[in-house]
């Protein structure tokens, strides 16, 4: 297991999220969730949220690292696997959850495109470091 790659891939995933929900689509995302500024702030323990987010993304990168250890893919395959995991596994799963919850298409697109870009960054780190 390449622990350095797993760690840096987590940081990359996290950075994509910060950019995605901060600078790029923060406003659109908030509108799509229908949450007001107050609702987002009250009772939200931000250090806990960011910490848990980091742990969850670490689990994803750990599973990617474990998969790569087993399959030993080439650089191109690494990128395809990571983007494929986002498109083929995370996106349909998010789709089903959101369909049953009657969430908007816009929220689905923002959240699932985040996975595609985030996982591409994860793949890029593994290609660069493995």
């Amino acid at each position, binding site marked *: 297991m390449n622990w350095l790659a797993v760690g840096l891939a987590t940081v990359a995933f996290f950075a994509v999220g910060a950019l995605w929900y901060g600078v790029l689509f923060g406003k659109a995302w908030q509108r799509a969730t229908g949450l007001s500024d107050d609702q987002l702030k009250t009772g939200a323990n931000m250090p806990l949220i960011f910490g848990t987010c980091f742990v969850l993304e670490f689990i994803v990168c750990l599973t990617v690292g474990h998969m790569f250890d087993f399959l030993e893919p080439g650089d191109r395959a690494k990128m395809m696997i990571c983007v494929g995991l986002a498109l083929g*596994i995370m996106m349909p799963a998010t789709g089903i959850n959101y369909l049953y919850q009657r969430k908007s298409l816009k929220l689905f697109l923002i959240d699932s495109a985040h996975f595609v870009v985030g996982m591409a960054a994860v793949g890029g780190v593994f290609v660069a470091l493995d």
Partner: protein
Amino acid sequence: MLTEIHWLAVVLAGLSGFLVGGIWYGPLFLKPWLRAEGKTKEEMGGGHPAMVFGLAFLCNLFSAFILDHVLGTYGEPDMRLTLLIAGGIALGFVIPAYGVNYLFAGRKLALFWIDAGYWLVTYLAMGAILELMV
């Protein structure tokens, strides 16, 4: 890497995920799920049912198609390895991914766990069917 596509197994695996959903979000956990969403059954009924369930089924089918491909890249894994891979996908990719979304949107922890159970059971069911039929 291209792998052989087992169409019948993929359709049945996709169907199993859809059926698990019907049981999971129906008789088993409809009430706690609605509570976690803070909505009534009527409020949750938006959107044309054919559209909602049709699209959900397509997502189930697509997940099964990809799982068939993933299992193919591992050669012909036996039942034990298949369940480890399928369960690992649910625990390592699906659940943490939507977990991040739920976290920032401030959704209830109960909703996270109900959905997590659905995904783990669904991936294990899909994996078992694909292993038995391939």
